[in-house]
């Protein structure tokens, strides 16, 4: 039990745990002490001197250990001769803090005046203007006039790129080091530092490539001035012109809570467009942070290749014509199937599932990673939060480069390890998370089937797993295809069962899925299509929703083509082959929910109006279903969710109201609540709910359909073992339209060990199982010999590990 301490701040009594900083205690008493360098998520450094206050401490009699009393029986207070920083001093019993005394105000005013002497005061053209702590604190605490001679002002570079995503305005920088500290302490990528000293100090990036971090955008949120801005938003809009819509990031299964800031603008032909993405606080999911993919990859929503009207046989058509043509095909032909991806919301997937049942056809999930059935059973259950884990608990991450696949999970797991959670990592190559792991197990690509057995065979690791009070296992798809991942999921579930980590919250299996709502699809009972090429050749009608199997190269164009009903938001190869195109809305144009990999169901809200004639996916499916006598909700997402919750076991008891609940969070965020902590947004729209779990401790673990010893591809002399891996920035349809990310996405490549005999940047021909793709060679000493890493979603249709060859094109010719 933490000892509580009572103190007085500006006459208000407040009781807080021992060790609380004065600035935080004040916040609990409803008093905002002004700060610049202090940030509630970071250790204080006491640099900016904005939070100067008077602190009096009771005088203690050295002999008795009791406070010395004055003539009125009150403890005598001792004030230091000088002001103290509220951000570095912790509370003590009987402390008296004066934040508004004449002396304190003079100190605060002095700091503002000093800061402004070298600040350009270019608020009228500054992106931060209107949401700027320096502006706010100058108004509240600063002098009305500066005594500094204007001609003595330093003028410095105003457009310094720190990498291609973030710009530094050196004049505006007040050298608070929040960005440096965020990068080194929170992100674990110490890529920013100070150069020079004194007034010549400046922020520089020390990494190559510059600002080498996937968390860089967060520094613009916490920058208390307009010094750091994103290449995306800078000079884009004034904050007060923006409207905000709460949403969930659609780029990965973490489910970061975000806000879309939108504005109607002339240069976008008068449309309401998204201007930026900001993190929305959810201390159970993403704290105050998002990754750069989530922040910058939203441009697909306004891509010129958005579909705006339905098509029939390649020609624009009315909704009526398109739906008629589609239902006619569905009525006419016998062999039919539905193929949908985890890009869709729960409501959409539920509608598709119901429609498939009504028609008596299979509903397949378009994915490269299996094992969802085990996560549905053994996943995290209601009441779980990675933030709960601490000393005595363990996290196991297998077959994943978490930093690249789900950056915010990487952050959460890193934080957990720093709190004392035993972090165990098993991966065939070094990844960034390894720096924080207590135990690391290396295995060869192809040995995934023995992975869990090998962990159990290591005495220390086995003990850590067995003795962990709580155990969370993250499993990814590093180097694996559908079948191998499914087998791995079953093994992980078995491990949870054997070590007694089933049937409780804060324990379970998390799938690092390729898409935001894959988990929702698994919960709904979707199964992956075993062989897409075969599916294409077998069925007469295929209803494809939010998937591009043709463009992804998974279906060879020479094969037989069924009648294709394609429902999507963007023009793509599958759309071009479609007989009927149904135009869906981007998720930002409608309501819905996603289920994260932690099985948390979260709501997103409409941010921008419908694009063209688009409709929400669940509504389109409902319109089709209607023609087959099935009544599905076609208008209200809330009602669609209600139907879903009534029908799907694990969703029972949930509704939109429950998902919208918010719990009080620390630190307080948002301009009204806590104006100095940055532009991360408060959460008033819901923190989501975690689903109920299926498996109990006594349940038998289901076995994978594929025999476990099945396809195991190992390196072989004379060939290259090609394995698929996931990188954050890929050429997927939800990423590539954001031109800003072009450099991060890079070229289509194969990653080899430097001793593989190829030069960095060489153009080579990659051959495997009849495929031939031209790629660029990238070298990385962490790649095992004889292995070629093939990043997914870069136009190389490698779904499974395979043996292949590399040729220099000359030799081929």
């Amino acid at each position, binding site marked *: 039990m933490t000892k509580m301490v009572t103190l007085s701040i500006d006459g208000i009594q407040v009781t807080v745990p021992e060790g609380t900083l004065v600035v935080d205690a004040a916040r609990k008493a409803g008093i905002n002490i002004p700060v610049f360098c202090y940030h509630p998520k970071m250790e*204080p*450094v*006491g*640099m*900016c*001197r*904005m939070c*100067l206050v008077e602190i009096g401490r009771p005088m203690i009699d050295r002999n008795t250990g009791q406070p010395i009393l004055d003539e009125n029986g009150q403890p005598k207070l001792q004030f230091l*001769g*000088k*002001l103290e*920083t509220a951000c*570095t001093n912790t509370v003590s019993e009987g402390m008296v803090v004066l934040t508004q005394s004449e002396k304190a105000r003079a*100190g605060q005013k*002095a*700091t503002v*005046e*000093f*800061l402004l*002497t*070298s600040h350009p005061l270019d608020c009228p053209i500054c992106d931060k203007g209107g949401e700027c702590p320096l502006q706010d604190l100058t108004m509240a605490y600063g002098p009305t006039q500066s*005594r*500094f*001679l204007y001609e*003595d002002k*330093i003028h410095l570079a105003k457009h310094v790129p720190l990498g291609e995503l973030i710009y530094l305005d050196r004049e505006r920088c*007040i*050298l608070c080091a929040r960005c440096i500290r965020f990068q080194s302490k929170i992100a674990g990528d110490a890529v920013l*530092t*100070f150069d*020079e*000293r*004194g*007034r*010549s*100090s400046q922020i520089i990036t020390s990494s190559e490539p510059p600002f080498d971090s996937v968390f860089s955008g967060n520094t613009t949120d916490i920058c208390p001035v307009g010094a750091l801005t994103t290449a995306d938003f800078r000079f884009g809009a004034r904050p007060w012109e923006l409207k905000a819509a709460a949403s969930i990031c659609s780029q990965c299964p973490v489910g970061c809570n975000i806000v879309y800031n939108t504005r109607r603008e002339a240069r976008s032909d008068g449309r309401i467009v998204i201007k930026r993405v900001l993190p929305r606080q959810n201390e159970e999911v993403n704290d105050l942070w998002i990754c750069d993919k989530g922040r910058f990859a939203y441009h697909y929503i306004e891509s010129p290749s958005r579909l705006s009207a339905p098509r029939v046989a390649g020609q624009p058509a009315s909704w009526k014509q398109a739906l008629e043509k589609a239902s006619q095909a569905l009525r006419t032909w016998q062999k039919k199937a539905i193929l949908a991806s985890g890009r869709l919301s729960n409501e959409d997937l539920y509608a598709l599932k119901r429609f498939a049942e009504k028609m008596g056809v299979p509903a397949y999930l378009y994915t490269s990673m299996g094992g969802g059935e085990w996560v549905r059973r053994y996943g995290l259950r209601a009441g779980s939060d990675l933030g709960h884990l601490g000393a005595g608990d363990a996290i196991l991450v297998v077959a994943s480069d978490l930093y690249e696949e789900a950056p915010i999970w990487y952050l959460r797991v890193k934080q957990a390890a720093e709190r004392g959670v035993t972090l165990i990592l098993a991966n065939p190559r070094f990844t960034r998370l390894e720096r924080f792991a207590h135990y690391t197990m290396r295995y060869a690509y192809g040995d995934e089937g023995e992975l869990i057995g090998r962990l159990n065979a290591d005495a220390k690791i086995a003990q850590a797993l067995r003795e962990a009070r709580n155990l969370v296992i993250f499993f990814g798809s590093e180097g694996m295809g559908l079948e191998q991942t499914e087998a791995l999921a079953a093994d992980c579930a078995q491990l949870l069962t054997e070590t007694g980590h089933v049937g409780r919250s804060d324990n379970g299996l998390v799938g690092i899925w390729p898409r935001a709502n894959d988990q929702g699809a698994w919960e709904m009972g979707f199964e992956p299509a075993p062989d897409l090429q075969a599916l294409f050749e077998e069925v007469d009608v295929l209803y494809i929703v939010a998937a591009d199997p043709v463009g992804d190269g998974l279906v060879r164009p020479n094969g037989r083509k069924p009648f294709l009903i394609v429902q999507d938001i963007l023009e793509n190869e599958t759309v071009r082959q479609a007989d009927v195109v149904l135009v869906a809305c981007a998720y930002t144009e409608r309501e819905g929910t996603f289920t994260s990999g932690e099985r948390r169901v979260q709501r997103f809200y409409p941010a921008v109006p419908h694009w063209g004639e688009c409709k929400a996916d669940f509504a389109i499916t409902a319109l089709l279903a209607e023609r087959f006598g099935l009544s599905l909700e076609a208008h209200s997402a809330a009602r669609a969710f209600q139907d879903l919750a009534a029908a799907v076991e694990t969703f029972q008891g949930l509704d939109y109201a429950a998902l919208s609940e918010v719990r009080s969070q620390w630190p307080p965020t948002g301009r009204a609540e806590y104006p100095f902590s940055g532009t991360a947004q408060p959460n008033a729209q819901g923190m989501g709910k975690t689903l109920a779990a299926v498996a109990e401790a006594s349940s038998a673990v289901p076995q994978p359909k594929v025999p476990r010893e099945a396809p195991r591809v190992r390196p072989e002399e004379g060939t290259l073992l090609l394995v698929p891996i996931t990188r954050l920035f890929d050429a997927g349809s939800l990423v590539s339209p954001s031109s800003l990310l072009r450099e991060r996405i890079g070229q289509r490549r194969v990653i080899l060990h430097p001793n593989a005999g190829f030069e960095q940047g060489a153009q080579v021909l990659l051959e495997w199982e009849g495929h031939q793709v031209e790629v660029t060679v990238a070298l990385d000493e962490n790649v095992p010999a004889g292995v070629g890493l093939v990043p997914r979603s870069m136009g190389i249709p490698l779904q499974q590990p395979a043996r292949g060859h590399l040729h220099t094109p000359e030799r081929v010719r």
Partner: protein
Amino acid sequence: MTQYLLLRHREIPEISRLEVYRQHGGFEAFRKAVTEMTPDQVTEVVKASGLRGRGGAGFPTGLKWSFMDRKSWPHYVVANADESEPGTFKDREIMEGNPFQFLEGVAIASYAVGAQRAYIYLRGEYQHIARWLDEKIAEMETAGLLGERLFGTDYSLRIYTHLGAGAYICGEETALLESLEGKRGQPRVRPPFPPSVGLYGKPTVVNNVETLTNVPLIIQNGAEWYRSMGTSDAPGVKIFSLSGRVKRPGNYELPFGVTFRQLIYEYGGGVLDDRPIKAIMPAGASSSLLRADDRLLDTPLDYAALRPLGGDLGSASVIVIDDTVSIDWVIQKTLRFFKHESCGKCTPCREGTYWMKHLIDHIRANGKEEKQVQLLLDVARQIQGKCLCALGEFSTMAVVSGIERFGEDFR
């Protein structure tokens, strides 16, 4: 003074040779401490001697040693040889002339606080001294005075030198520790103080070179002997670095209680051209400017005595200013220095020194407008009491005392 205690090379030129130092009793104190005394006894003797830190703050040395957190290990000793205060040049002479006595002091301090590693942090410009000390340390290792199981006991010690990169701020003990750890030299928030959380987060004693050089003599001759010199406030001897408008600038090792008049006229040979003394900066560039009246000149010097006169003895780097020097020129000099050396971590020092430097430049270039002088004084006062470390405060000392006490130079 007939006998030197610290600058012994002035009497025994070869004392920097190990055998000569040993012939004169060298390392007997270290042997005595390790073989005959417990660490706490060593600390007690130093405490009883009244030895105070010679780096400027004058903190009781033994008391500092006794603050070492015994729940946290390992412990470290760091010798602060960053000597960067303008007007201070005493540690250099000790290390160049009498290196073994200093190293013996490091060794005894290490034993007293249970440190098995000690570091000597030297300013970058002292590269030649670092190499020199490395040689001396190697000789000590060869002679069995450093290394494993010293004098047949369980006690082991290694000493390393480390060079700074030319920053005044690294003389501040927490900035020094940051720099020693390989980080950017910027001060840490205190508390915690180094004896609780110091080098690599472990308890650390940081002592000035001169302080440590006193220690072997105290252990050898006892606390009583040491207290017999100097004053009750400050027992022992002090090296005064005398500079400015004097005929014989240099280091003078004298007992506390000596007066400025003795120092300047008896030892320093008087003022150049026999001009009258106008002001004294007793502690280098970070001093207040003291008006040189008879009361000041005849005050027996120790840490306490100067306070009522509006100054601090600091590192006793006495800069003499005569009537040919204008105080605004002095202020400009100090501000140029502090603006250049501000580390930039905290706002008042970073922005304030830049601002003051510009103001004094304006004042000196464009005539002494009262408004500008007043503004300079206001800015200096606005810095005071708000900085992260003492060095920020130091930047204002000459400004405030100069304008307040030498108003005639600003009209």
